[in-house]
């Protein structure tokens, strides 16, 4: 069984936010209005953490892309009362919108605050409706959603590979954020495949994971010389 | 006429009491069904069935005990009531 993982090279990342935009378009993530956004209800599957260090005028700015970490030991799936979020055999932490009852317990339990909630029925402008991704189902009000590592792409890739009767090659399945990154800072692949780029990067001395001491074993690796 | 009415009334009230006591058993049976369904699900999805079984071992006896206490009281009262009525009519 493959084990999908992501590596984000922070030394390459320019913090442009292209991954966020690509993610929103790929996954039909609702766009909330300005008033909602001011109330901390922005819906982003791929978030961008902005950390300021130091005092003016010597401010250092860190921009860190933050998707769902698809932990190997996810705290969110343990608390779900209805099997709406669970970890599948390939290590993807799935969110099933039509099962979710909206108790938001998984959001409270996630130490990375990776999940978002549909506070209102999502609405799109007419211009947007024509460019929806048909492979990703639309969410309804009152359910939790989060980054899926573009699991719909995996299904397509699997289908293609099995139709041709071959294995999935490294880099064939990659989420929208990795595909779109102009700095080529996001890598995606199979941790079980010792030849894959991600496996090599995850063993790099520059690699680290967020809040490793919690024992959640995230499958998103950050690469950085500093820190 | 009045006595017939009274008898009928007593019977209706007794039936209603029986219904109410069977309702609590219905609740208990419903809960047992529910919990066993959840255990089946957790086994099926390989989702730590041990925990489910552990919880059910605590929860189910509690409900059964509660319902049995109520039934015990109900049966105890009515056995006595019959005697009570018999002695009344005997007098």
């Amino acid at each position, binding site marked *: 069984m493959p084990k999908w993982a992501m590596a984000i090279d922070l030394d390459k990342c320019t913090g442009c936010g292209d991954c966020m935009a690509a993610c929103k378009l790929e996954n039909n993530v609702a766009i909330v209005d300005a008033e909602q956004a001011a109330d901390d209800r922005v819906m982003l599957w791929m978030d961008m953490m902005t950390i300021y260090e130091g005092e003016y005028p010597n401010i250092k700015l860190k921009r860190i892309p933050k998707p769902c970490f698809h932990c190997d030991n996810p705290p969110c799936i343990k608390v779900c*009362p209805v099997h709406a979020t669970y970890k599948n055999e390939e290590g993807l932490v799935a969110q099933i919108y039509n099962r979710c009852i909206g108790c938001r*317990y998984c959001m409270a339990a996630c130490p990375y605050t990776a999940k978002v909630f549909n506070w209102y029925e999502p609405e799109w402008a007419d211009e947007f409706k024509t460019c929806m991704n048909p492979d990703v189902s639309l969410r309804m009000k009152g359910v939790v959603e989060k980054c899926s590592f573009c699991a719909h792409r995996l299904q397509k890739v699997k289908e293609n590979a099995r139709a041709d009767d071959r294995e999935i090659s490294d880099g064939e399945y990659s989420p929208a954020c990795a595909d779109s990154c102009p700095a080529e800072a996001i890598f995606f692949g199979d941790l079980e495949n010792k030849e894959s780029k991600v496996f090599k990067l995850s063993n790099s001395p520059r690699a680290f994971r967020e809040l490793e001491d919690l024992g959640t074993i995230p499958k998103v690796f950050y690469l950085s010389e500093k820190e | 006429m009045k006595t017939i009415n009274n008898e009928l009334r007593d019977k209706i009230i007794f039936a209603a009491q029986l219904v109410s006591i069977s309702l609590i058993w219905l609740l208990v049976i419903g809960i047992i069904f529910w919990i066993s369904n959840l255990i089946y699900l957790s086994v099926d999805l390989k989702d730590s069935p041990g925990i489910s079984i552990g919880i059910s071992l605590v929860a189910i006896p509690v409900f059964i005990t509660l319902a049995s*206490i109520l039934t015990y009281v109900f049966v105890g009262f009515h056995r006595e009531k019959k005697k009570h009525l018999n002695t009344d009519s005997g007098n």
Partner: protein
Amino acid sequence: MNEETKNTVDIDEALYRPIYETGKSFYFAVGFLLFIIGFTLVVYIRQVYYGLGVTGMNQPVTWGFYIVNFVFFVGISHAGTLISAILRLSKAEWRRPITRMAEVITAIVLAIGGLHPIIDLGRPDRVLNIFTAGRLQSPLLWDVTSITAYFTASTVYLYLPMIPDIAKLRDRGGKMVWFYEFLSWGWHGTEHQKKVLSRAINILMVMVIPIAISVHTVISYIFSMTLQPGWHSTIFGPYFVVGAIFSGIAALMIVMISFRKYFHLENYLKLVHFRHLGTLLLIMSLLWFYFTFSEYLTGVFGAEPHEMDVIFYKFTGTYAIFFWGMVVCNFLIPVVILAFKKFKTIPGILIASISVVIGMWLERLNIVIPSLANPRMGLDMGMYTPSFTEWTLFIGGLAVFVLGFLVFSKFFPIISIWEIEEGRKESVKEVEKRVTSYLPDPANSVE
């Protein structure tokens, strides 16, 4: 038949009066409460229609008033059954006029509290998923089971000791005899029936205590099972139980004082009852302080950075006013009032009780919000301002509580009549016998 029974119960006529005499103020109060509840219902339906966006909750602060009130109401519900079971079990004779009210609080408030998680759901229409596809591994399902068990147990525990009183009402005739006959289960006060009843009550009160404790422990598990700073703590189980009993006693005393005033029950609820309960409240207040102290000391001493974020948020940050308000309400005010006999009068105790109820609500607020508002990752601090909807539903919950009590008092005696009678007839002798059995045997001590 009627005249006979009337003569025997004449002494406690005051306890029947609320059932048979209904003043204008009662209808006015019920109408007012129904209006509030109706309005609350409209507001709730609006929330279901538009989604949870109408509340003040947002991304890091995903739980707000609903969960706070859930914990708070379920905490209050511990007043009842637990206190009454402990008092019955320890044969405290002064319990007799108190137990019924305590048990009613449990049943009503638990029903209100139990509804709160459903109000909190984003998709209440899918609540049945819990039955068709639930996970018993989730602490939320532990809650569902334990609250159901506690609700069943406490309703049974309220009902069984009420049977003799219901039979009394049936024998008096008058309104709704069929209703009382249905509920009295053919009670005629025979020896056998008394034996059956007392045996059932004895089993129940032993059973109810662990169930009650489990309920609030499990509610604390909702928080402590996560990894969040400020929540992930082993002390939470007992801490919540102590807090629950603490707020429960306070709520019980508020209810007792209002009924005493409203129905003129000064003869039954005497100062001594309040003093005893007040002492209990004082003990719980000290115990609460001890738990709070341990909880925060371990956090501060360990000084784990994320934990410290949450603690500073409470000590000096945005929630400082609520945190220190909680300490004042839960510790300073009740201790000052209850430790001195001079202040331990009915108005004093009322002030202490109200302050404790407010303080315990603040405590729930202090537990739920700050941990969520300070996410671990380097994100911005969250803010939470409850909206009009949340306030309305909170007030609506309180209105249901008051209404439940008023309606109950119209159908059943609010003070257990047969237990008072029993106390008059038997317990004086029994207590004398019991106390003598504690004392050293005079025959032996001479030798």
